[in-house]
C-alpha cells in the first residue's frame, strides 16, 4: 500500500509521539525538535495538497476495517478539512516554538510533547475523518489527551480538578455524539461522511431526526464549551499556557464548531436546529462577554472571551443561511489567530512577572513594549476594531443578525444581542490593555519583567501580523482559501460575499460603531468598578462549576452509597444464594415456558454395576457435603471417592482421555488439599452449633435451593440425553482428524490442532493461576494456631524424649519408611509413564495434559516421601522455567506456520522412519503438545511445591522459638 499523504499527516504525530517516548536521555532539545519538525512536516504535506482540493474535489483514502458493519478507515480532505488541518498543524508548530521557552526546567517535557503530539494527531483525525464512527473515535481521543494535557501539572489540585471536569463534560458529550452518529448511520444506511452529506433531506424528514440532532448537539456544545456546558473551560486554565493557547484557539473547542459546520448542510435549516443553537450561541456570546469583564485572572478573561466568541460562531451557524455559515467559518479562523496570540502573550506576561492577576500588574508597556504592542493589536482584533481580521467577520455577523431568517423572538433579538455582546467585548479588551500595559507600574512585581527571548515572541508576532494582513487585504490573502473551504461545506453553492474592508456606510457599520463607542463608554464609566469587583453581579451566583460538583457528588457518592446500601452486601453467603437462585431461575423460566419433555431414546440398557458404582458415588458426594464442616479429612476422602467414580464413568462411556486426565488430576488435587489442610483450623469443640429457629430456617432454605438445583440438573440432563443428537461439528473433526491433523486420537487433535488457539489460551490461564498462587504464598502468614507442630509429630517427639536411647526426631525420620522408599524408586517409573502418555497422545489416549499432570505427580511424590528440605537440597525443579518454556514453545510453534505463509497455529505432519523404533508420527502439533506439557508440569508443580514449601516456614518459626527456650 503506498503511503498516501493523507495517512502521512495523520500518522506522523502518533509515530513522533512514540519517538518522543523512546528517545534516550533526559535532554529537552531532541524531543522539542522532534515535535516541531513533525508538525512542520504535517504543515508542509497539508500545504502541498492544496492544488488537489482547490478545485472543489475531496481527496479520499479508504482502508477496509470492518466493512460488514460499514466501518471503514476512511480519510477525506476537502477545502474545509484542508484549512483546518493547516490551521491545526500551523498553530501547533508556533505553540511548540513558544513552549520551548515557556516550559521550565523542572517540567517533564517529554510527557508534555508526547501528549501534545498525540493530541495533535487526534485533532487531525477529527478533521480528516471520512467516516462518522472514525470521527467519534478521534473525537474521544482528543478528550482523553486534552485531559492529560490540562492535568499536565499533576501536582496541582486545580489542574487535576480542571482536567477531570473537562474530561467528564466532553466525554459525556462524546458518548452522546456516538449515539447521534449511530442514529444518523441508521437513517442513511452508511457511516460514510460523503453518504451522510448527500442525505440531508432524508435525515431532516426522518422521525429520528430530533433525537439524532439532540445527541449530536450535546456532543458539539460540550466540546465547544457552549452554554450551559461552558463552565469547564475556565477551569481548564490550570493547564500550562501553551496547552491553553493550542486547545482553546485552534483545536479542542474548535472541534465542536467544526463538526457543526461539517454537518451544517445535513442538519441545519429546521426550527429545532435554529432554536437550540440560537439560544445556546446567543447566551454564550453575551454571557461569556459579560463574565469576561469581571475576571481578574488574565487567562480567565481569555477563557470567557473564548466562550463568547464560540457563541458567536454557534449563533451564526444556527441561522441556517449559507452566508452566515461562511461568516462562521471565517470567524473560526480569525478567532484562532488572535486568541492563540493572546494566550501566548498572557503566558509571556505570567512568565515575566510571575503573576496573572490583572490587579497586580500595570504599566507593563514600559518594560516590554514589543510584546505590549503585539498584545494590544491582538486585543483590538478580538474587540473587532477595523483594519484587523476580527472586524471583518464581526461585520458579516452584524449583517446576518439584521437579516430575518425565521420569524421568531430569537431572530428579533439577534441584532440587539449582537451589539450588546460586541460592546462588552470592547470593554473587556480595553480592560485587558488598560490594566496590564497602561497606568503606573506597581511598586514591585513578583519578578522584574523584561522582554522575552525573540523566538518566544516570534509566534505571537507571526499571528498578529496575520491578523493585520488579513484585516487589511482580506481578498488578496485569505480570500481564495476561504472560498474553497466555504464552498466545500456548502456543496459548491457558495454564496456571493465580498471580503472587502469598506462596504460603504451601511447598517452593520453603524452597529460596529455603536458597539465600539458603547464599549469604550462602558469602560470609562465602570472600569474602576470592574477592577475592584470580586464577583460579577447578577450571574455570579449561578456557577456551573458548583452545580457540576453537586451532581458529581450526588451520582458518584450519595447515590452510589444508597444503591450499595439497598442492593449490596459484604457477606458472601447472600451473594452466593442470589447467584444460585438467579441461575436456577434462568434455567427454570424457559423450561416452564416451553414445557419439559423427554426425548424418544428413553433410558438405555442399564448395567447393574454402573448403577452400583454411582450409588457409591452419590453416597460419597452427599456424605462429603455432610462432613465438610467438621471432618475435613473424611470429606476429602469422600470427595476422592466421587472423583474416582467420575473417572470410571469416563472409562465406561468411551472417554479414555478424560479418564486418564481425571485420574492424575484426582491425585494431585487430593495431595494439594491435604497440604492445605495443614493450615486450616482444627475443630474447636467449644464453639457450639448455632441453635434456634433462625439458623435452622436458613439451613432449610439452603437445602431447598440445593434440592431444586439438583432436580433441575437431573431433569435437564435427562431431557438432553434422551434426544437424538443433532448434526454437530464432531463429524467434521472426526473426518479431518487424520487427513488434516495427522492424528488418530481425535480429542487430542482437536486440542492441539483444530482448536489450538483455545488451548493456548487455556494453558495461559493455567500459567497465570500458578503464578498467582505462588505470589500469594510468598508472603504467606499462617494463622497463629497453625504454627505449632502437627499433633502427630508432637507425640512422636515426646516418645523420643521419653526413650533414653533414641535421638529426638528419629521416629519422624523413619515414619512410613517403606512407602517412602517405594515412592522414591517410583520416580523414574512415573517419568517414563509421563513420557509414554505424552508420546502416544496424538494417536492413542494420552497427551500433553495427562502427561503433564502425571509428571507433576511424580515430583510431588518425592516431596511426600522425603520431605521438603531433603528434596529441595537435591532437586532443582525450576517450575517457572517450565511454564515459560512451555508457553514460548507453544506460541512459537504456532507462529512458525506464519513464517510459511499460513495462519497462526496451522500444523504440519509427516511420518519419520527411525532405526529400530520404526515409524514415528511427527507433527508440528506434537511440538505444540510439548509446550502444553511444559506448562502443565510447571504450573502444577509450582502450585504444589509452593504450598508444600510452607512447612519450612513453620520450621523456621519453630526453630527460633526452640532456641529462645533453650537460652532461657
Amino acid at each position, binding site marked *: 500500500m503506498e503511503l498516501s499523504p493523507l495517512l502521512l499527516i495523520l500518522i506522523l504525530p502518533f509515530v513522533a509521539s512514540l519517538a518522543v517516548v523512546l528517545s534516550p536521555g533526559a535532554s529537552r532539545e531532541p524531543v522539542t525538535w522532534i515535535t516541531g519538525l513533525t508538525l512542520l512536516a504535517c504543515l508542509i504535506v497539508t500545504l502541498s495538497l492544496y492544488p488537489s482540493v482547490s478545485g472543489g474535489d475531496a481527496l479520499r483514502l479508504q482502508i477496509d476495517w470492518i466493512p460488514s458493519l460499514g466501518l471503514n478507515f476512511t480519510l477525506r480532505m476537502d477545502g474545509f478539512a484542508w484549512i483546518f488541518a493547516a490551521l491545526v498543524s500551523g498553530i501547533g508548530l508556533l505553540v511548540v516554538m513558544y513552549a520551548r521557552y515557556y516550559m521550565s526546567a523542572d517540567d517533564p517535557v517529554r510527557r508534555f510533547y508526547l501528549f501534545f503530539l498525540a493530541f495533535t494527531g487526534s485533532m487531525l483525525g477529527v478533521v480528516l475523518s471520512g467516516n462518522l464512527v472514525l470521527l467519534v473515535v478521534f473525537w474521544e481521543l482528543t478528550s482523553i489527551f486534552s485531559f492529560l494535557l490540562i492535568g499536565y501539572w499533576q501536582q496541582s489540585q486545580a489542574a487535576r480538578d480542571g482536567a477531570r471536569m473537562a474530561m467528564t463534560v466532553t466525554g459525556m458529550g462524546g458518548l452522546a455524539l456516538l449515539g447521534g452518529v449511530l442514529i444518523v448511520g441508521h437513517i442513511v444506511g452508511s457511516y460514510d461522511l460523503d453518504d451522510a452529506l448527500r442525505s440531508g433531506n432524508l435525515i431532516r424528514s426522518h422521525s429520528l431526526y430530533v433525537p439524532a440532532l439532540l445527541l449530536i448537539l450535546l456532543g458539539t456544545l460540550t466540546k465547544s464549551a457552549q452554554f450551559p456546558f461552558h463552565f469547564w473551560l475556565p477551569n481548564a486554565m490550570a493547564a500550562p499556557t501553551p496547552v491553553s493557547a493550542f486547545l482553546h484557539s485552534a483545536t479542542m473547542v474548535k472541534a465542536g464548531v467544526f463538526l457543526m459546520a461539517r454537518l451544517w448542510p445535513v442538519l441545519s435549516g429546521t426550527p429545532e436546529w435554529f432554536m437550540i443553537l440560537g439560544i445556546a450561541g446567543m447566551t454564550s456570546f453575551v454571557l461569556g462577554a459579560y463574565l469576561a469583564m469581571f475576571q481578574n485572572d488574565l487567562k480567565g478573561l481569555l477563557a470567557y472571551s473564548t466562550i463568547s466568541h464560540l457563541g458567536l460562531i454557534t449563533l451564526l451557524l444556527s441561522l441556517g443561511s449559507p452566508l452566515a455559515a461562511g461568516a462562521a467559518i471565517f470567524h473560526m479562523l480569525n478567532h484562532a489567530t488572535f486568541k492563540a496570540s493572546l494566550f501566548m502573550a498572557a503566558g509571556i506576561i505570567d512568565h515575566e512577572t510571575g503573576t496573572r492577576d490583572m490587579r497586580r500588574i500595570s504599566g507593563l508597556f514600559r518594560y516590554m513594549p514589543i510584546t505590549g504592542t503585539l498584545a494590544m493589536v491582538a486585543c483590538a482584533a478580538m474587540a473587532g476594531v477595523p483594519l484587523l481580521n476580527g472586524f471583518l467577520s464581526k461585520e458579516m455577523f452584524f449583517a446576518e443578525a439584521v437579516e430575518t431568517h425565521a420569524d421568531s423572538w430569537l431572530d428579533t433579538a439577534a441584532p440587539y444581542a449582537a451589539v450588546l455582546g460586541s460592546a462588552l467585548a470592547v470593554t473587556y479588551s480595553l480592560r485587558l490593555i488598560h490594566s496590564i500595559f497602561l497606568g503606573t507600574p506597581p511598586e514591585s512585581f513578583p519578578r522584574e519583567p523584561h522582554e522575552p527571548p525573540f523566538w518566544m515572541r516570534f509566534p505571537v508576532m507571526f499571528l498578529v501580523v496575520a491578523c493585520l494582513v488579513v484585516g487589511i487585504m482580506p481578498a488578496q490573502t485569505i480570500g481564495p482559501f476561504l472560498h474553497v473551504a466555504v464552498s466545500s461545506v456548502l456543496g459548491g453553492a457558495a454564496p456571493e460575499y465580498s471580503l472587502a474592508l469598506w462596504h460603504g456606510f451601511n447598517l452593520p457599520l453603524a452597529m460596529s460603531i455603536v458597539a465600539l463607542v458603547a464599549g469604550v463608554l462602558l469602560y470609562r464609566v465602570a472600569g474602576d468598578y470592574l477592577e475592584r469587583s470580586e464577583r460579577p453581579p447578577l450571574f455570579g451566583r449561578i456557577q456551573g462549576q458548583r452545580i457540576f460538583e453537586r451532581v458529581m457528588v450526588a451520582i458518584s457518592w450519595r447515590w452510589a452509597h444508597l444503591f450499595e446500601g439497598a442492593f449490596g452486601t459484604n*457477606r*458472601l453467603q447472600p451473594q452466593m444464594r442470589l447467584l*444460585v437462585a438467579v441461575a436456577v431461575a434462568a434455567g427454570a423460566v424457559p423450561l416452564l415456558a416451553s414445557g419439559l419433555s423427554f426425548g424418544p431414546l*428413553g*433410558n*438405555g440398557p442399564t448395567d447393574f454395576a*454402573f448403577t452400583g458404582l454411582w450409588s457409591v458415588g*452419590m453416597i460419597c*458426594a452427599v456424605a*462429603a*457435603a455432610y462432613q*465438610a*464442616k467438621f471432618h475435613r479429612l473424611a*470429606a*476429602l476422602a469422600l*470427595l476422592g471417592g*466421587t*472423583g474416582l467414580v467420575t473417572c470410571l464413568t469416563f472409562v465406561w*462411556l*468411551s*472417554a479414555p*482421555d*478424560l479418564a486418564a486426565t481425571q485420574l492424575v488430576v484426582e491425585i494431585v*488435587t487430593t495431595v*494439594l488439599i491435604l497440604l*492445605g489442610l495443614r*493450615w*486450616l*483450623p482444627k475443630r474447636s469443640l467449644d464453639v457450639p452449633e448455632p441453635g434456634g429457629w433462625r439458623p435452622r430456617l436458613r439451613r432449610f432454605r439452603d437445602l431447598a435451593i*440445593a434440592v431444586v*438445583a*439438583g432436580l433441575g*440438573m437431573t*431433569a435437564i*440432563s*435427562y431431557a438432553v*440425553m434422551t434426544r437424538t443428537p443433532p448434526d454437530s461439528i*464432531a463429524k467434521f473433526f*472426526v473426518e479431518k482428524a*487424520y*487427513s488434516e491433523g495427522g492424528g*488418530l*486420537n*481425535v*480429542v487430542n487433535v482437536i*486440542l492441539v490442532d483444530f482448536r489450538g488457539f*483455545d*488451548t493456548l489460551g*487455556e494453558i495461559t*490461564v*493455567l500459567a497465570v493461576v*500458578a503464578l498467582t498462587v505462588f505470589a*500469594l*504464598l510468598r508472603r*504467606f502468614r499462617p*494463622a497463629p494456631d497453625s504454627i505449632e507442630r502437627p499433633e502427630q509429630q508432637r507425640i512422636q517427639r515426646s516418645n523420643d524424649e521419653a526413650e533414653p536411647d533414641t535421638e529426638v526426631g528419629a521416629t519422624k525420620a523413619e515414619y512410613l519408611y517403606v512407602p517412602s522408599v517405594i515412592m522414591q524408586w517410583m520416580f523414574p517409573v512415573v517419568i517414563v509413564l509421563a513420557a509414554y502418555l505424552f508420546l502416544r497422545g496424538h494417536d*492413542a489416549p494420552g497427551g500433553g495434559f495427562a502427561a503433564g499432570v502425571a509428571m507433576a505427580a511424580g515430583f510431588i511424590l518425592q516431596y511426600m516421601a522425603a520431605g521438603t528440605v531433603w528434596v529441595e537440597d537435591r532437586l532443582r525443579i525450576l517450575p517457572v522455567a517450565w511454564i515459560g518454556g512451555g508457553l514460548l514453545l507453544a506460541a512459537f510453534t504456532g507462529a512458525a506456520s506464519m513464517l510459511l505463509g499460513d495462519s497462526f497455529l496451522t500444523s504440519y505432519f509427516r511420518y519419520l522412519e527411525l532405526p529400530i523404533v520404526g515409524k514415528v508420527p511427527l507433527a508440528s502439533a506434537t511440538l505444540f503438545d510439548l509446550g502444553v506439557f511444559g506448562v502443565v508440569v510447571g504450573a502444577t508443580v509450582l*502450585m504444589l511445591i*509452593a*504450598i508444600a514449601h510452607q512447612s519450612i516456614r513453620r520450621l523456621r518459626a519453630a526453630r527460633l522459638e526452640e532456641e529462645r527456650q533453650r537460652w532461657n
Partner: protein
Amino acid sequence: MELTLAIAIGVLTGSGVWLVLRPRTYQLVIGLSLLAYAVNLFIFSMGRLRVGAAPVLGPGGAGDPAALADPVPQALVLTAIVIGFATTALLLVVLLVARGLTRNDHVDGREPN
C-alpha cells in the same frame, strides 16, 4: 444408564450447591469440586452416552465417524478438568491466606455476631 447418570449429576449438583452456600471456607472448596464434577459430567453427556466406542480412529484414519464417541465434549471437558484443578488450587490458597490475615475460616473473614 441415562437416568442413572442424570440422577448422579443432580445429586452432585445438589451437594455442591449446598456446600457453596455454607459459611466455612473448606466447605466452599469441597462444594466447588463437587460442582465441577457435575458440570464436567453434564458437558460430557451432551455428546450422548456411548459404551464401547473410542474417539480414536483405526490405523490410517479408518473408521466410521458415526461409530465414534463424540470427541468435542471430551475435548472441552479435558481442559476443564485441568483448569478446574488450577482454580481449586487458587481458591484454596486464597482461603489459606485469608485465614492467615483474618484469623478465622469464615467466608466473610469474620465470625457473625
